[in-house]
């Protein structure tokens, strides 16, 4: 089998494969990847690239798809560099960080995905055997309909098989799988992306039959007039208060109040208990309210005026909380990002 990566010396890869041995089957913890520079330096073990490469290659099962060690090392190098070994852009990964990152990859899934991407027949048989039914089930769960689910899954299958050609070259979305998470999780996420993007593209499309002659669309709302000074102050206090909350809290507010997600849905995404989400939300709302009061007091209002201002009807405010909390990005970049 010939892999798409250009030939490079595996010595270049294994120059940074060394140091502490980490079990590859276990994902590397955050501290082992991102915070490893803060750990005290220990004596580096002598670099044994051949031994480590051989070990990772055997564990990945790459031999089953005819993937040799040289090609395997190129895949690892490509994946590591594409993600800067899990570090922020511009940071330089040490040998241990590089080793930890590579050992944290789902090597078996990565090898299977890469083998499927290049059209290895045995890999595809294995892929279909393992993932075909789960993929259908995931699609049905996402769409809420068996018909739509099967349609979505079939469409993705076609894409994965590389029926789409770009500039004469067959491309498979499996190329974008880098082994950070499980392949099944990646398939589910890809299905969800396809479904959401499809829904967003089609929801604004109205059939022509619905356009009745003489039935004009509703006029746009008149531009609101100038708001009183105190309402402008209140709006400013709200914006300032929302700007000070942390990222997780913003996510919580957006998911709960804008998306209308339940606590039970939010909890697994944040990997906390439902009750914890409830407590966080309660504290967050109270904190925002206190911050608004504090801001208004800092603006020079007295307590009585602040209390009266808090009783303002929110509809009187020219304030779009949805815009403050989130920025809706255009859908044009979705496909590019996903592939």
């Amino acid at each position, binding site marked *: 089998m010939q892999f798409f990566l250009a030939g490079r010396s595996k010595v270049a890869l294994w120059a940074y494969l060394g140091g502490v041995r980490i079990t590859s089957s276990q994902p590397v913890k955050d501290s082992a990847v991102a915070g490893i520079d803060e750990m005290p330096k220990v004596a580096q073990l002598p670099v044994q690239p051949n031994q480590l490469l051989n070990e990772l290659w055997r564990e990945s099962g790459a031999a089953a798809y005819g993937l040799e060690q040289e090609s395997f090392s190129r895949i690892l190098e490509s994946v590591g560099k594409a993600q800067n070994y899990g570090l922020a852009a511009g940071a330089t990964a040490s040998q241990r960080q590089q080793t930890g990152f590579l050992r944290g990859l789902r090597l078996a899934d990565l090898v299977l995905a890469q083998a499927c991407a290049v059209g290895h027949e045995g890999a595809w048989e294995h892929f279909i055997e393992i993932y075909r039914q789960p993929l259908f089930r995931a699609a049905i769960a996402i769409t809420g309909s068996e018909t739509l689910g099967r349609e979505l899954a079939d469409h993705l299958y076609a894409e994965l098989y590389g029926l789409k050609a770009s500039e004469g070259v067959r491309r498979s979305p499996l190329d974008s799988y880098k082994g950070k998470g499980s392949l099944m999780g990646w398939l589910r996420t890809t299905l969800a992306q396809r479904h959401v993007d499809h829904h967003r593209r089609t929801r604004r499309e109205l059939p022509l039959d619905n356009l009745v002659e003489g039935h004009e669309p509703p006029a746009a709302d008149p531009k609101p007039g100038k708001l009183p000074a105190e309402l402008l102050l209140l709006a400013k206090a709200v914006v300032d208060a929302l700007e000070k909350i942390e990222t997780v809290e913003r*996510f919580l507010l957006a998911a709960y109040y804008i*998306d209308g997600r339940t606590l039970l849905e939010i909890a697994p995404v944040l990997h906390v208990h439902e009750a914890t989400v409830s407590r966080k939300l309660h504290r967050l709302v109270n904190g925002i309210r206190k911050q608004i009061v504090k801001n208004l007091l800092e603006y020079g209002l007295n307590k009585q005026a602040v209390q009266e201002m808090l009783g303002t009807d929110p509809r009187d405010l020219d304030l779009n909380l949805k815009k403050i909390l989130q920025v809706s990005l255009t859908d044009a970049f979705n496909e590019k990002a996903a592939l």
Partner: protein
Amino acid sequence: MNSVFQLDLHPDADSLNAFAEQALGVAEREQILAHMTRCSRCRQVIFLAHKAAEAEDLETQSALPSRGWRWGWRLGWVPTAAMAAALAAALTVVVTMHPRHTAPAPEMAKVVPQNAQTAPVPLREPPAGAALKPAPPVEANSAAGSLRFTASRRPPEELALEAAPSAALQATPGAGAYSPGENNAVRTPSTESVQMRTQQEFPSQFNPEPAVGGFQQRQRMTGALSANANATGASQESMKAAMGGAPVGQNAPAFTAVSRVSKQGAPTASFDNGAREAIARSAASLNANLPILPSGLTAISAAVTQQRTLAIDVAGALFLSEDEGKHWEPVTRQWTGRPVKVRVQAIGSGTVFQLTNTSGFSWTSADGKTWTVQ
């Protein structure tokens, strides 16, 4: 960070999936979270992917060999059943070791055998001639194991109330001879003396109960003695020890009957000396002529006036005798529940019988035949 985090780009599926699976570093995770606060599309993708993962988990669980919901229920009941069994065992031990009607600690009397030779005699029938040769209290004392009351703490007012009948009963032959010793001053000698006399003088006048286990005996005895154990100031241990070698089933009713007699002699505010002496004489008379009830069961409580004698057997039947126990006739049931105590109550210069059931309700009767709820 990789190129997918460039401006106006969404994180790719691999990064979103890694975020969902907690496979990202802190910095990368924070970056994706920051993106998701702004991007409803990626939030929706994450939630949908998680929904699909949950559905897959459910499918996997249902594909596993299932034993049905009953098996789950069974497993769920295992710890509950184990706890219930442990609790039941603990309760059984507690009930067995500590009878329900144990006297309160301040009224407990401890009986200590003075020597090793007075070890508790196994439960067995007493000699046939024991009833024919009532031993004097002193002899009974030694025969019962030279019992010595070592402690008895009772409220002073209760002791004062019992002072009068105590004096009356001590005047009976042999009663005063049973001297508990140095703690006699705080003991209720009336009760104890009557108890000991009864046990030794009339051990076989009661029909022996059918053989029952120790627990049943204790329960029965406890039920019979419950009303009087506190009043007599003697614990069940002292009672059992006071019974000496006599069978428990035989002696318990005798003890109870006499002790109730001693209680019915408890003075009240309107109790004059004449009535007190009459009751004391009646008690002595009852002691001397404890009945054999026609039901064949032993009496648990009895009361005597000059003309009539009432007795309750262990089954709760009430019998009346107007010839000092020679002949008995059953009294028609005019009460509710199971009567457990009958006593003589002084009213003015006269007396009436008072019957009490297990629930504590009382009925009174002047003649022992017609009862009125009190």
